[in-house]
Structure formats: C-alpha cells, structure tokens
C-alpha cells in the first residue's frame, strides 16, 4: 500500500553522507539503499515522515519535516493552535 505521490518532505545531502548505513537500518519502509558507500533515496513515496532517519544520521545529511500522519491529530492541532499531535486514540 502506498500513500500520496510527491508529497514527502524528505531530503538527502549526498555531500555530507558518510555511508554509515544507519538510515537504511531504521527506516521502516525501506526508503534508503546504500549504493557505493553512499545513501540513496530509492523509494521516496513510501516515506511516512517519521523522522527516524534524520534523527539517527550522525552526519546530519538528512532533513525531513516529521510529524504524525493522522487526520484527528491535525484537526486537534488546528483547534488548539499547536503542531499536529496525536492524543489517546490512534496511539494504540
């Protein structure tokens, strides 16, 4: 199953990448592959913007605007004027 095309905010700066491979280890959707000692985004549309790759990249080569892909969370955030956040409910 795949979600909407061309919306993920994921970006990789290949210049900075040191090829440690952590991004491909932590990604739950196999978005990265390590090709020739460098990370490469091979399936950007599968990115769910969880932020695991960016947080664990020791070279700060990855940026992604992470957050919850949750309609109820976005509505709650709008009503409260905060960032989207899940309350109890979806987080089961």
């Amino acid at each position, binding site marked *: *199953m*795949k*979600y*909407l*095309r061309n*919306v*993920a*905010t994921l970006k990789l700066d290949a210049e900075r990448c040191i090829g440690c491979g*952590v991004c491909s*280890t*932590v*990604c*739950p*959707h*196999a978005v990265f592959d390590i090709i020739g000692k460098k990370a490469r985004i091979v399936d950007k549309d*599968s*990115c*769910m*913007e*969880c*932020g*695991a790759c960016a*947080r*664990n990249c*020791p070279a700060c080569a990855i940026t992604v*605007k*992470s*957050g*919850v*892909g*949750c*309609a*109820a*969370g*976005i509505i709650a955030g709008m009503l409260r004027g905060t960032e*989207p*956040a*899940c309350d*109890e*409910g*979806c*987080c*089961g």
Partner: protein
Amino acid sequence: MKKKYITGSIETKGGEIPTVSTSIDRMDKWGAFKARCSIGRMRYTIRPGLYAAGNPDQDSIVLVSANYKLSFDVLRSSLHGIDAWILVLDTKGINVWCAAGKGTFGTDEIVNRIEQTRLKEIIGHRKLIVPQLGAPGVAAHEVKKHSGFTVIYGPVRASDILSFLENGMVATAEMRKVNFSMRDRSVLVPVEFVMGFKHLVLASVVFFLLAGLHKGGYSTQVALTAGSRSTLILLLAFLTGTIMVPMLLPWLPGRSFSLKGLIAGLILIVVLGVSGFAESNIIESLAWILIVTAISSFTAMNFTGASTYTSLSGVKKEMRIAVPLQITASLTGVTLWIIGRFV
C-alpha cells in the same frame, strides 16, 4: 497490589531487580482487550525501571521497552527461554512508536534511565537493543555520546527477537519493515469505533428529534418511524467508514483515505437503493447521498492516524481538499433532509 506478571526478584550489584514471567495469562489478555477498546487504556502502565526475564547475568542482553503494558507484554512473552534484562522507559503509558514520535521514548529518557537503574553496575557490556520503531525518538549516536552505550536497533516486531538474536543481532530486511496486514488493521478498528461512536449517538438524537417535523406540524409517530430509519442509515454510514474501509483498504480504489471512504459510501448508497431502503422522495434521497458519503469519507480519513504508511504532508494535502467538501456535503445534506420533511 502485587503484579501478577512479577514472579520474584534477583540480587544484583545495583540492587534487587524484579523478575517477570514470559507467559501471558488470562488477566493480561483481558487487560489488552480493554486497552484496545479504549477503556482505561491510559492507566495501562507499568513502573519504569529494570526487569529480569529468565535468569540474566552481567553478560546478558538489555532490551529497551516502553511502560505501556501492551508493549511490555508483547516483549516479555517473546523472550521465552532466554535470559535478558528489560529496561522500561517512562513513556507515560504510550506505546513505543507513538512515544518515539512525541519524543518521550527518546535519547534523554534512555540516558536518565540507565543512570537511575544503575545499569552500569549490573552489567559488564555497553550495548542496548532498542526496538526499531523507537528510532524516531532516539538518536543512537547521542546515546553513545552521553552514556557510552551503543544502540543496536532490533526488529520491528518483538516476535522476531529470537530469530534476530540467533542471526547474530542482525535484522533481515523483512524484520525491518512495517506491514499493515488485515490483522494489524483489525485490532485498530475498535479504538476508531469507540472514538467516533459518541458523535454518532449525538447525531442520531438530533435526527430523531427533527424527524417528527412534517407538513402538518410535529408528530411523535413520524419521529419514531423516520427517526429510527435515519439512525440506521447514519449507523451504516459510520460502520462503512470505520470498519469496511480499514478492512478493504488495499482493494478500494484511490490513494487518499477520504476518497476510499467516499467510494465505500457510494457502495452503501447503491446497496440501500437496491434493497428498497431508499426514500420515495427525491430530495430526501439526495440528502442521504450527501450525508452518507460525507460521514463515510470523514470517518475513513480518520483511519490515517492508525495506518502505518501515511505522512504528515500527505494527510495535510488530503485534508485541504476533502474537509471543505465533507463539510459542504453534510451541511447541504442536512438542509435538504429538513426541507424534505415538508414536501
């Protein structure tokens, strides 16, 4: 009260550590069922700290978990036959993945919990196995810098832990991936259902009260017959969005959840029409088409939060288009329905 899953304790250099059972009993299952249905799930926590499974010593592995009892139960029950330490973080009773997203399952909490449990005195090595789904909150290189511990990311599913260990602590590509099977989706349905149900009850009451209106004034008799039928249609639309869409997710056309919900709602309309349940009056039929599709589309859209593949940018994009349409459809639908009472 004594916790049933705690079976005893062992003496260590860092103090007495409780041992836990690696099997799940009836009480655990009942608690899990209640938690899934949103009954007191926020109190379904265990005390953060260090626990022992089997008879671990200073060379045994350390697995990190959340203090949400469901996460903890799944982990301990997958440790049958091995000796291990379980380091339970304080995630305020929230599961690993969601807590990682909020940052409560995170670098600071790991570093602090290592200190508080005197883990360095209890074990000789400096390795932690962290569930992969905790990675959004944990920066492995920061943990190393602040505590000296190396984070090894374990498999996504606790049930793969034994194979992971046998495989020399290397997760296969399959163990790294999040799936979203029929079974995964079905356990999430009750929560969505319970959350939406109170709105459904409220809407039904309003429809019941308004249903009595007709050309000749107000009739309780009409309110009862038209009201029960309205409630039934509302309920069916709600069930379509909260149960049918999640179950048929891969087979419903479209990528956005609101579109899948809209299509499922149209299927329901056709079924209602064919079964002779449709209104005789054209205005009221039109009203129901709008109301049913708005409800099924909206409730289906809410399942994005339970899914494992939607992104923030994607849901925002979907909502920018869908929410105005859902609001317009439901308001127009209700207006038409009221007008329909008088023609």
